[in-house]
């Protein structure tokens, strides 16, 4: 049920949920409230049926730990106990915020998010090419970065294999051997991507035609803002 509702909601509702969720989690100053958010995150993770990998868990922990350490280091004049409490709170908040963001982004198509944001921006500022170009950059980056990562891995593996076959020890600059081909392959690929976009009718100055805004989206948006007001007034 929840999964179906998630699929039918407009991507702009998801953007609002992301912003409001981050704000509420970050504002929380009570242990019980933070505990509640963490329990809800565990439930959401279970409902999505997408178990977190060890690498993702480690990334969340290390990202939050970094902010916790920074909070501790940046208050050198505070008493030690205050600094420790602040660092611990910062760590927990960032951990919950990052976890929530990852869940929301995994449950939504990034392509839909960007194209709906482009639509919203063009509704406000008019169908200007700059808005389309910004969206294009985001979309191309999302498509390109994983592909480039895979290419880099192939190239590094090939360099290592060739050194071994030639009977020579690996050199430090072998690890950088992927840079030049990556640039060249990106240029070649970008031509293909541009051609594919153009033939599919994409134009920087044309407003895209995203999913229509429904009564369900109005209800979800209202509930989200009500939740934000309650959380703010009640200081959850």
């Amino acid at each position, binding site marked *: 049920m929840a999964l179906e509702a998630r699929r039918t909601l407009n991507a702009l509702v998801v953007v609002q949920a992301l912003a409001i969720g981050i704000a509420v989690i970050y504002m929380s100053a009570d242990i019980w409230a933070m505990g509640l958010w963490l329990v809800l995150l565990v439930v959401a993770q279970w409902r999505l049926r997408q178990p977190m990998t060890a690498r993702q868990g480690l990334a969340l922990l290390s990202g939050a730990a970094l902010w916790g350490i920074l909070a501790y280091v940046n208050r050198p004049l505070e008493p030690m106990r205050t600094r420790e409490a602040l660092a611990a709170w910062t760590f927990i908040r960032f951990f919950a915020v990052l976890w929530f963001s990852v869940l929301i982004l995994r449950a939504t198509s990034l392509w839909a998010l960007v194209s709906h944001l482009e639509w919203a921006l063009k509704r406000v500022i008019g169908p200007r090419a700059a808005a389309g170009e910004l969206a294009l950059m985001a979309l191309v980056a999302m498509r390109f970065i994983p592909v480039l990562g895979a*290419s880099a*891995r*192939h*190239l590094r*593996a*090939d*360099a290592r*294999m*060739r*050194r*071994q*076959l*030639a009977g*020579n020890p690996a050199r430090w600059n072998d690890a950088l*051997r*992927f840079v*030049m*081909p990556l640039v*060249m*392959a990106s240029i*070649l690929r970008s031509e293909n991507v541009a051609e594919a976009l153009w033939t599919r009718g994409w134009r920087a100055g044309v407003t895209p035609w995203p999913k229509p805004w429904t009564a369900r989206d109005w209800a979800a948006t209202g509930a989200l803002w009500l939740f934000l007001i309650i959380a703010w007034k009640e200081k959850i």
Partner: protein
Amino acid sequence: MAMTVQGVTLPYSGLFIEHWQAPAAGVYAVMGPNGAGKSQWLSLLAGQLKVRGGTVKRGRHRIGLVMQHPEHQIAEDLVSTEVLWPYGATRRTAPEFLASVAQVKDRWALDGFWDDSPWTLSTGQKRRLVFAVYDLLNPDVLLLDEPSESLDGEWKDRTRRWVAERARDHLVLIASHDWPWVLSFVDQGYWCEGTLDNKPKDLGELWYERQVPPSGRLEELWRELLDRSAPVGLREWIDPQIAAGQAVKLWHWKHGAH
């Protein structure tokens, strides 16, 4: 020690390899539908794919992998540098090494673009360049992923002769969808779909058993003849001239004319 793979499930494709032991030498095809895990299997053998569980033993074999996309194996701004960079300066001046380089240049016709950028080459030429690189490196086990892709008829033929020559004293595994090309010179192969056969089978029989959709009218006709137990070979359809000769013989046989 022989190369072995035991109890491994590949990610994404889900290909399960219960037990596989590499033959000592020869050329073997790896056939199967798209996404069955053929390329992943070659990457696993080359040590480029890490898996959880199971064991992969490579012994002391020197393994080389020619990937499906030559762009993943080109990193230099000159064809000559691309071929020579893995070798030390001392080795590059050794007479026997220079003789090997000359032989490889000649085999893959690299002279015409030896001092050009590999990025200006066509895909077929890039593939020839990567073949040349691994020809010179001379691995004990050569893994070829879709080697005939984007090669013209002449270079498909030359590549076939090179592989057949190597296979006399090396092991070559070829993952491909190009049935006519592999059937023209490879005797045995592995089928890859869900699980990987632990022993190679006759490639002609594999082609017939697996009932892949025919790539052309001649293949379809041949399949029909085999279905009707006509006295034709499993591989004759790959060469239209041989197929035509066989068809004439068949006509004589049918009409009792000798």
